[in-house]
């Protein structure tokens, strides 16, 4: 089956007073129909910029400098503003990180959701629209939806606002939902509710989700497939079970080691990844993770590694996976030899 979203060699830059920031430097991935792709990475890895590039919401300073983005086989990069507007909201909808600031404080909730319907279906009458908004509010389980139509964002809790954001995003039954850290700003208990809601709505509506997060725990709960980003590059991509069973990139391993485990011995300390992300105005010549990588070799600083196929339907960008890489102290080679 053809993927709903096909991104190939996407490159996005921002022009700033300090120079050109190469936020995304050639990223390729697919989102399969009805499935959820998790894009994982720390701040500045380029994961949010990737999603904003798809919708062309980069603002005045950002632009896509290369690559291809296909929605259900239809190329998006050459689309005009007007053509993109017809896609935003209707075919690709987006939920943002902070529900406290993502809703307009001066417009009632019902109207903000209704505007989405109005924009993409002008033939709908006002009464029909109101009925549909009520239905959406019920769908995302907002208590007393009739009363809530006229409420303003400040009268809602963070979790309720995110429910409104989801209702708004799903109003036009989009083929693809991009969720940019939708639970990061919420309490843990609310996070769980929102994730469950998203999962059940996905099952009901059969849409595809691109889920951006820095939290591997959330990925494990919701995603079918994971793409790990770092320094504007896609480091590793694999099915969810495979990546948790056996990460095939030192960065993925580092991310996993930094997840707290409830059953873990109290005396075992969490392992943070030392160092900080690269400067994206002058991105490193080699692997962007090399300066922080415990396994870094000389070649890692010199050249970006090619993708190595590390199993069925998975790949990773690391010199350790090169056929010529030394076996001694190589976390990936030992495992493979043992398997053979």
């Amino acid at each position, binding site marked *: 089956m053809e993927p709903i979203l096909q991104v190939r060699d996407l490159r996005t830059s921002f022009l700033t007073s300090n120079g050109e920031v190469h936020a995304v430097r050639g990223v390729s991935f697919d989102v399969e129909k009805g499935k959820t792709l998790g894009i994982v990475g720390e701040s500045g890895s380029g994961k949010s910029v990737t999603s904003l590039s798809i919708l062309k*919401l980069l603002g005045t300073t950002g632009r896509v400098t290369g690559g291809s983005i296909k929605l259900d086989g239809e190329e998006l990069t050459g689309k005009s503003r007007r053509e993109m507007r017809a896609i935003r*909201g209707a075919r690709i909808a987006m939920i943002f990180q902070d529900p406290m*600031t993502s809703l307009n404080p001066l417009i009632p909730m019902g109207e903000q959701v209704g505007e989405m319907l109005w924009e993409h279906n002008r033939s709908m009458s006002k009464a029909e629209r109101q009925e549909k908004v009520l239905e959406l509010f019920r769908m995302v389980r907002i208590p007393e939806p009739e009363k809530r139509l006229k409420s303003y964002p400040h009268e809602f809790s963070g979790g309720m606002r995110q429910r409104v954001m989801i209702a708004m995003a799903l109003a036009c039954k989009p083929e693809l939902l991009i969720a940019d850290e939708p639970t990061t700003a919420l309490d843990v208990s609310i996070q769980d509710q929102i994730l469950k809601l998203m999962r059940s709505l996905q099952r009901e509506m059969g849409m595809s989700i691109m889920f951006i997060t820095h939290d591997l725990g959330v990925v494990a709960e919701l995603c079918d497939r994971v793409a790990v980003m770092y320094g504007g590059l896609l480091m590793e991509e694999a099915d969810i079970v495979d990546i948790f069973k056996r990460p095939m990139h030192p960065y993925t391993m580092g991310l996993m080691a930094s997840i707290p485990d409830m059953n873990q011995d109290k005396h075992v300390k969490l392992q943070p990844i030392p160092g900080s992300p690269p400067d994206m105005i002058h991105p490193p010549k080699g692997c962007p993770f090399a300066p922080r990588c415990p396994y870094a070799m000389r070649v890692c600083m010199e050249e970006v590694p090619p993708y190595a196929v590390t199993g069925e339907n998975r790949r990773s960008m690391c010199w350790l996976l090169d056929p010529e890489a030394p076996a001694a102290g190589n976390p990936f080679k030992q495992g493979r030899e043992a398997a053979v």
Partner: protein
Amino acid sequence: MAKYLIKRVAMMIITLFLIALLTFVLMHAVPGGPFTSDKQVSKAVLDALNEKYRLNDPLWKQFVDYLGGLVRLDLGPSFKYQGKTVNDFINNGLPYSARLGAVTLVFVLLASIPMGIVSALKNGKWQDMLVMAIATIGVTIPSFVIATALIYIFSFKLGWTPMYGVDSWKGYILPMIAMGGYSVSFLARLMRSSLLDVMGQDYIRTARAKGISETRVVVKHALRNAMIPVVTVLGPTVANLLTGSFVIEKIFAIPGMGGYFVNSVTQRDYTTILGMTVFYAAFLIAMVFIVDLFYCLIDPRIKFD
């Protein structure tokens, strides 16, 4: 709501009382009085004058008497102009000042807000540069310089507008520009920075992600939010414009309130100083109050209390 209004009105009365008290004390703290003169005036005349205007009473009694008049909206007789009361000055001057002020206010709003919007939306482009250049000139050059330049060009050289007076509608044009120049520049800058700030907010990105047109994003989602800081400064601006400008009224020979106010200070005309101050303060407080009511209309997060 009712409770809030009562509280606000009580606060307004207390404020006005304190302003009156402070003005009264300061006025009397300065040596000399309204009848101090270069010319020798016989003691008998001076005594008679002081007696007539009850300046021989103890100060506290004078103040209480004044407050008594104030409650009846009687601001007292002028000490300097025989047979005239301070109420006369306001009744004569305010219509001129207020009419010019109203015209100027409309001009200020119609000019500054579109200027700010264009400037913000064309951030860094030539339109923005042009607006900001005009705004810088408007803020830095004093109104009397602008007024003089305007009279020279449009009245003297081109003959399009009268040199002085407001006998025809044309007479309002130059004073309006000269008096409103500062407010236009100030509000245009404020509108620009406020709109730029709003356009960078997350909810604007949400609006764009809905696929609505950029015009709708600006009009429906950004402008109302961006107007909030502008509305804040509008209260004092309105009060300032409507009560007249001494300089502008002097240059264009408009018999407004500004002239009475400034003259009363140099002439030590006690009742006029007090009356004008209290009137201006009351006006300003009322405008700020109206602005606060407007707030509640614009921003649902603000409640009465």
